């Protein structure tokens, strides 16, 4: 299974690559090679850190290239900030647009009695018929570390509640995202990555 992993110089790719290899995939990493994106069979956009770091995707032409291959049905998985990037934007970096595959925006958890960031293992409430979360039951735990979150929308594949419910995973056609880190979420996380790797390109162009 070939998988293209986008490096946008925001954090650490080692864990994602390790998990993908463990599942038998052959990850190919690129930070700016548009030809690699164009021939990708599936794409993972990892990410920890600041939403502003996604500006590099625009500057390198990756954003436009990704938009094109997604339109052709290439499966795409955004993780953490990589999932938030699928939305229109985030209050973390108001001037930086996301891909806008989902028209809503991400915002910081409200201040209150709970700590922000949300760090640790929290449970999923899984929507029916999710391909990404196939075989994952509601109540299973995954690992989060974030201060900004996406709202619950029509394409939410799983919600998690911290202060209030938010999108832990989204899914629309060939576009997938997880706010949590499947590569750090034990056997549940590996199951989710394995589900993603099993999803093939659908349309022909």
């Amino acid at each position: 299974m070939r998988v293209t992993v986008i490096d946008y110089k925001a954090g650490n790719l080692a864990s994602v690559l390790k998990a993908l290899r463990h599942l038998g995939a052959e990850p190919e990493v690129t930070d700016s090679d548009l030809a690699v994106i164009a021939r990708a069979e599936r794409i993972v956009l990892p990410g920890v850190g600041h939403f502003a770091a996604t500006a590099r995707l625009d500057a390198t032409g990756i954003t436009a290239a990704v938009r094109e291959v997604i339109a052709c049905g290439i499966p795409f998985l955004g993780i953490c900030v990589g999932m938030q990037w699928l939305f229109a934007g985030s209050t973390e970096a108001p001037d930086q647009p996301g891909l806008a595959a989902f028209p809503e925006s991400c915002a910081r958890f409200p201040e209150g009695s709970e700590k922000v960031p949300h760090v640790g293992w929290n449970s999923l409430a899984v929507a029916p018929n999710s391909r990404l979360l196939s075989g994952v039951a509601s109540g299973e735990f995954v690992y989060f570390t974030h201060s900004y979150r996406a709202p619950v929308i029509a394409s939410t594949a799983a919600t998690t509640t911290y202060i209030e419910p938010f999108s832990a995973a989204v899914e629309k056609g060939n576009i997938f995202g997880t706010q949590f880190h499947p590569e750090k979420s034990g056997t549940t996380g590996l199951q989710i990555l394995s589900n993603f790797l099993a999803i093939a390109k659908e349309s022909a162009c």
Partner: protein
Amino acid sequence: MLTKRIIACLDVRDGRVVKGVQFVDIVDAGDPAELAARHAREGADEIVLLDITATHEGRKTLLDTVRRAANELFVPFCVGGGIRTAHDAEHVFNAGADKVSVNSAAIANPALISDIGRSFGAQAVVVAIDARRDPAAADPVRDAQVLIAGGRKVTGRRVVEWAREAEQRGAGEILLTSMDADGTRAGFDCELTAAVSQAVSIPVIASGGAGTVAHFTDVFTRGCADAALAASIFHFGVSSARSLKQELEQAGIPVRLPC
């Protein structure tokens, strides 16, 4: 519901896991990669590897140890000990760590916290604080002394003000060790943990003193800890993380189960 994390800690010297009592009387407890994998299998929510090697040769062994341990770990993995620069941190991340913990070097150069955070994200920077109550201070707990060099050297910093500064400089978590409680198996210092946890918005990992399940219940309730570290209670087969968590669940503490 966000659960309380049980973190297995491996103190590593020259490539072997060791455990001391109040930083002395060190005994061999096994191979780090093997033990890390075992703890993850047995339900630990996270693994911390603290390198207490002093020598240059030993430090090269560390990266190899991290690589071996990381290879089979799919839970968060934090590595600390001897990380002085963002460059040192980069090597440890490249070897497969998800987080690094910095202690003495952050005291000497607090900008190190933001330096590492800038490249790898705040979530990847754990500031480890070794603290000892100061009976001479107006508030012996909030003004507990911060020590470095494995608890041998007083820094002049006070625990709550240093934890706040670390947070403000971009630390993602605080790993707080009570030097009074460490190795005693007589319980965590819950007052110390609560004072720090309530002073910051980032998670606080309590360390030092774990001996019974009730000690964990205590530090998660009275101590306001977000996570707790344990080493010796696992290594010698006293308990596994899973059985610890099953007992915590019965006591009403939210934990990741089944795991």
